[in-house]
């Protein structure tokens, strides 16, 4: 992107979005997309810690075959809370609401999102939903699993299901409003000259994510509302004794919840495209294919939900069509992985922390994606459905994929967000710890899953113990790997060296404004003249390389 060079005036303390205002009101009533991104960053880190705590408790419980650390009711509440908090209150908002909110306006060359006040409303809805979920947890928790399958959730469970459902219902609208804001901003507020194929790939993947948020979230909102109504008024919508059909709940629930996994992973793919390109200083190989693959994933993502129900009483023919479409959706993901790898060819690669996280992402997402093919295969799904094989698969995509990309993205854009560098050595250590700890936690679960250990088991046969012990050992290393960045990011925000506008020599509009940026992002709206990822303009070469 070539643009008129910006020479910031050297006043004593430069005005930026962080020191533009002080005090609680300037944060709680802000409509600046960058401040709302930080509000989201704080709140989802809080939920990530709670969810992580539950994960450690579950792993501790599973050290021994007998259920002896907690009672089975408590264990059921633990894995339900772990699921609900991690999915609805961490993974779904993680990249779109933090990095997306911060970067989408900057990357398209706008001063703010299309609807700043709705953006703040989105954060408040998230917090209200979170408070309701915390209240439901404090009051006694929910033991239905994050999937709320009826008739257990609507008739037989005597836990605080209704409060939790209202919490998720409200938090769902926060996700809808973020998606709505992104779609309108990307369509109507691009800088002059910024055509669709000059947009960074982070924008493409967040656009695809917003499509899924808009078209999927309302369906789960009304489905969970029906479960709550059925619970309160004893109606028979999903209750078989009164004529309802629990399989219909599963259809409506998974219509959203499978595309929801693409809400979680697509922004991660966008971050990885940016990191791979920045740290090999090379245009992403097959830019148009990677961009359109995101859109293909978001659309195909709506046609495959039946692979969660192969053994749940779905008809044979419906299972056939869902299985076939689930195989097709593997192709765009494969294209992305191959294109990322090809980008490294003839690049100028430097092994900073974000790139280590990106390599981790590509490795683990490849394994996660391919094990998805195991589960899409009808014959094999019959055996591995609802076992630890499934648990390992979706953790490879969610933790190995999305959380790795999220950590890589936070490290990559930290200089832009806080204006300071993070400690590189500690960063690389945390990336290594997370990679090793992750594999030690979830590889054994593939093995014990295929041996037949079912999901959500509080006590299991003794022959599965060795794999669970290995997995728990891995979980502690993983927990340590996540704790490290938390410490050094706080340290770096106060004491680290200042970072210039473009510490990595990366291309992109966000690297041409100050770190941290001013509230309006650009003094003068940039005009885009060339394709993205043009490193010859960012770092003019004396003599061309090889």
């Amino acid at each position: 992107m070539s643009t008129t060079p910006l020479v910031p005036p050297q006043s004593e303390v430069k005005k930026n979005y962080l020191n533009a205002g002080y005090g609680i009101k300037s944060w709680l009533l802000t409509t600046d997309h960058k401040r709302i991104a930080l509000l989201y960053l704080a709140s989802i880190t809080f939920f990530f810690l709670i969810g992580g705590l539950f994960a450690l408790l579950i792993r501790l419980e599973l050290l021994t075959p007998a259920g002896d650390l907690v009672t089975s009711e408590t264990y059921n509440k633990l894995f339900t809370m772990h699921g609900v908090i991690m999915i609805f209150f961490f993974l779904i908002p993680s990249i779109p609401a933090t990095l997306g909110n911060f970067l989408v306006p900057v990357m398209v060359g706008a001063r703010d999102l299309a609807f700043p006040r709705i953006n703040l409303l989105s954060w408040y809805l998230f917090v209200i939903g979170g408070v309701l979920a915390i209240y439901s947890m404090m009051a006694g928790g929910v033991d239905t699993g994050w999937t709320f399958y009826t008739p257990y959730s609507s008739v037989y469970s005597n836990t605080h299901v209704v409060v939790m459902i209202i919490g998720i219902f409200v938090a769902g609208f926060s996700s809808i409003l973020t998606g709505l804001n992104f779609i309108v901003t990307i369509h109507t507020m691009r800088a002059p000259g910024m055509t669709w194929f000059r947009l960074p790939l982070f924008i493409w993947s967040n656009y695809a994510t917003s499509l899924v948020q808009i078209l999927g979230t309302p369906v789960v909102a009304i489905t969970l509302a029906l479960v709550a109504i059925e619970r309160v008024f004893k109606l028979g919508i999903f209750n078989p004794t009164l004529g309802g059909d629990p399989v219909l709940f599963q259809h409506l629930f998974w219509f959203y919840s499978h595309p929801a996994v693409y809400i979680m992973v697509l922004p991660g793919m966008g971050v990885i495209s940016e990191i791979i390109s920045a740290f090999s200083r090379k245009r992403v190989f097959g830019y148009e294919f990677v961009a359109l693959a995101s859109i293909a994933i978001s659309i195909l993502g709506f046609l495959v939900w039946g692979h969660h129900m192969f053994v749940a009483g779905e008809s044979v023919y419906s299972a056939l069509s869902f299985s076939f479409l689930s195989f097709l959706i593997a192709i765009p993901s494969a294209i992305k992985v191959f294109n990322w790898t090809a980008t490294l060819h003839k690049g100028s690669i430097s092994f900073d922390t974000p790139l280590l996280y990106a390599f981790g992402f590509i490795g683990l997402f490849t394994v996660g994606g391919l094990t998805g093919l195991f589960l899409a295969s009808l014959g094999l799904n019959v055996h591995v459905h609802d076992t630890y094989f499934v648990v390992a698969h979706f953790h490879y995509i969610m933790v190995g994929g999305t959380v790795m990309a999220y950590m890589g993205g936070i490290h990559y854009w930290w200089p832009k967000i806080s204006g300071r560098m993070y400690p590189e050595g500690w960063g690389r250590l945390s990336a290594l710890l997370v990679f090793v700890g992750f594999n030690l936690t979830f590889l054994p679960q593939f093995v014990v899953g295929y041996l037949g250990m079912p999901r959500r088991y509080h006590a299991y046969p003794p022959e599965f113990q060795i794999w669970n012990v290995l997995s728990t050992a891995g979980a502690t290393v993983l927990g340590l790997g996540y704790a490290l960045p938390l410490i050094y990011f706080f340290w770096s925000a106060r004491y680290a060296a200042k970072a210039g506008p473009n510490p990595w020599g990366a291309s992109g509009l966000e690297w041409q404004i100050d770190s941290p940026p001013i509230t309006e992002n650009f003094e003068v709206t940039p005009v885009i003249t060339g394709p993205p990822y043009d490193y010859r303009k960012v770092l003019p070469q004396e003599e061309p390389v090889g």
Partner: protein
Amino acid sequence: MATYFPFLPEQGSRFATGVDTFYFSMVGLTIFFASLIFALILFFSVRYRRRSPREIGADIHGSLPLEIFWSVVPLVIVLGIFAWATELFFTRSNPPANTYDVYVAAKQWMWKVQHPEGISEINELHVPAGRAVKLVMTSQDVIHSFYLPIFRIKQDVIPGRYTSQWFQADKPGKYHLFCAEYCGTNHSHMTGWVHVMEPRDYQHWLSQAGIGTSMVAAGEHLFTSLGCASCHVRDCPPLQGLYGSSVALQDGRTVFAGEAYIRESILAPTAKVVRGYRPIMPTFQGQVSEEGMLQLLAYIKSLAGEAPGKVQK
């Protein structure tokens, strides 16, 4: 069973072997692709590491042939996997001709298994080796899932309707039975054992396991005590030869008279009225327990001209 640490699961049936071969070839495929990607990343990142701080990468945009290559090749591989897996699924979804029907009623946190000869067991399933066994299952409360890892099969058990699955064990032994669909507090204790026995031992076990009235006899008793016999002789739809045939309905549809049709016609008779008959049958909702329903079903299946258990499939 001595606690040993299995790495590879035991195979209890031909279907299990088929699933395992598929699984191991998929594992091989995953290892191949993962190591291919890992090797490429390692090689590229070492070969093209940054040598000077201002060095940038070559100006390569992409290549259409390469993109087509790694779209079409994965597509072909994936379609091959789909075909193989679907063929496995057809075997699992289509029980062979004469299966040995066992009825399973799932209840929050236990499995009640009923053999056609009338013997019922809790959390235990004794089956003869070498014989195709079909499980006809229903639940009395929430969704459960009857999971036999040794045979690589599982099927959700849904309240309000019948679901079924089949297996043919070939190795005698005692294997795990799990509930795989989360069903509440004691979901992890809703487990049991399946005992595969030589046919001789099985007959011996049957004989001395108790002389319970056969399900067909119990079904016939219910059939008369509920008053069905008085009507289903002349002016009500005949039940002889009903099971497994197709029935023309009042509203022009033709329905396959399977287990679900019989259950529905008992609980909600006016849902599917047989052509040429008035919808005068009262509902028996709430008057017949799940076990009673299974016994009635066994009796009506026996009226299809065959003895229970050896029903022509």
